[in-house]
């Protein structure tokens, strides 16, 4: 479960770009603009994403699995919401959403209101709730053993937030 060392800028950048692409596809179904990718990497270089409380072994494992995108990302997102609400994966996803909602290319996907009837909204809500529970249960099979495994592995140190521009 060990990560590539974060002080290797070249490797980091590539990895971070890839995960930003994965999160954007997961959230909006589109690819991020170069501006979003750049800001995403910047946020990591400035050290505002990882915090000591958010970056344990299990958090890193969730991020690795979620990078695969598709169902894997969805399962991790669901599991993280309930069991690691302020964990590394959620921090990365929220950062991505924040960047996308102010991005010229992507903001319309975030802001567009899905006009439908009140009944449609309530039906959609019920559908989302059912899917959430289903994915949560499915995720438990995968994530509980992983959690146990992570609990017995020493945690890597979190680099401190950097002051000033990189």
């Amino acid at each position, binding site marked *: 479960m060990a990560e590539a060392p974060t002080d290797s800028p070249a490797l980091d950048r590539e990895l971070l770009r890839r995960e930003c692409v994965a999160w954007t596809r997961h959230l909006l179904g589109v690819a991020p603009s170069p501006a979003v990718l750049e800001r995403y990497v910047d946020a990591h270089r400035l050290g505002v994403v990882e915090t000591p409380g958010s970056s344990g072994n299990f958090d890193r494992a969730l991020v690795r699995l979620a990078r695969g995108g598709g169902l894997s990302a969805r399962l991790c997102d669901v599991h993280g919401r309930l069991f690691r609400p302020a964990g590394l994966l959620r921090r990365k996803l*929220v950062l991505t959403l924040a960047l996308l*909602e102010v991005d010229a290319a992507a903001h319309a996907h975030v802001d567009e209101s899905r*006009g439908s009837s009140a009944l449609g909204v309530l039906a959609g809500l019920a559908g989302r709730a059912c899917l959430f529970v289903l994915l949560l249960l499915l995720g438990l099979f995968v994530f509980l053993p992983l959690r146990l495994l992570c609990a017995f592995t020493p945690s890597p140190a979190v680099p401190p937030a950097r002051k000033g521009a990189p």
Partner: protein
Amino acid sequence: MKSLTLVGSGASAVHFAETALERGWRVTLLDVGRARPEHVGPELSFAGLKRSHPRASEYFLGPRFEGVLFPGAAGEYYGFPPHREYVFAGHAGQPWRAEGLEPLFSFARGGLAEAWTGAVFPFRDEELVDWPFGHDRLAPHYDTVARRIGVMGVEDDLAAFVPLHAHLEQPLDLDPHSRRLAERYGQVRGRLHGELGVYLGRSRAAVLGSARPGRGACEKKGRCLWGCPNDSIYSPLHSLRELEAHPEFQYRSGVLVQSFEVEDGGRVTAVHLRRADGTRERLPVERLVLAAGTLSSGRIVLESLARAGEPAPRLGGLMDNRQVLVPFVNLSMLGSPVEYESYQYHQLALGITPPPGRSGREYVHGLVTTLKSALIHPIAQSVPFDLRSALGLVREVHAALGLVNLNFHDTRRPGNALELDFSGGGRERGGESRLVIRYEPEPGEGARIADALGRVKRALWRLSCVVPPGMVHVRPMGASVHYAGTLPMSRTEEPRTTTESGRLRGFANLWLADGSTFPFLPAKNLTFTLMANASRLACEDF
């Protein structure tokens, strides 16, 4: 010519200055006065900025991502945009420590009202029973201030609690969600009044619907929270610009007033300043008026008392309005499109009567803000779904979301106080002391909140709205930024009080012209009364 020295450039100070100038005084205004940065893309709307401004990401989220509300952070749904940090940035020469209250200070040109939401509601007689005078003494000054700043409002059901005044301008058209609420209220108002004691009406706001010199009309750009690029929302900065054109007005920014010097007989002779470069200055004064905001004015008084040899000076009676945020979903708005090009702040307000048998001063006041242009990531992450589902849901319910901000009154209690801490050796070494702020809520506050909250939730239900479980947020004390009460006006000769005209007892030529002088804090936002009272004070002894 008669001259006075005034401290601060916030809402209180500028209206004192304006009236004093009108009455023939020469005014020197001393201020830390951090300047507001230029507006980014002033011609663009909220959506336009995102669409076409090359630095929209830095503008909205900050260069160091200060505007991103990460999960688990202690922010609120409406976090402050990073470029407005100048309003709240602390001052190195003003350390503080607080217990039970999270204070906000401002050292900005224009003060805290550079970031306010412009709610202006006059106090009525029931709320002024602890004051040494009634509404009639303030009424002409509400008129004056309304003329100066531009206030929108109408006579409606809220007028039973919010006195009318001159110069009320036609409000902006309601946004679709506020309109829906107002229409529904029209159908159920009899029951809301009779069964719940809840009234709804148009908010009164210091916003321009038509342009005046130096300020544009609101063009519904939806950037209110980020700083109105049209200057439609009033800021004391607008008054300051006008004052600077007056030949008898002098503005000195970049100076921190630390204390004043008193000779025997209680005459203030000079103030001690710290300039921006750290050097000190002694400035002689004829009359001194403190309007640096309740906390900062209190600090100047405490420092001066300590300087004069008082071992442990203390100012009791600090007040602040408790605020409770009640988010709601309007079922009748579900599935509607969002109108981003809207005025962003409250267009409706609630009046909640005190429970039967309680005094009229226990009135609870609410501002109703419907969600239009806003950053979505803070809201989406609070939904109890994975972020992808949450985002989908927020897009569907965005137009139906709203927030009631309930405000509760406060009373003066001796334990809630400002003190100085010299434990760092400040006094002996001639250095800075630390301001200590202590606050404890009134016993029984919980019951008052529960009563009002219960009635507001039922009222919202009658207006077709539901309050999602677990989402009500009791804000920490200090968050309303309505500080008052440390040197109250009083008819009786008591130490640490001011006369009806704001002169501090024991001093011949020292006046307080901000919230320090309020003997009771009604639930309504206080700034309109700060301005009106400051204007009144400038008429009484000046």
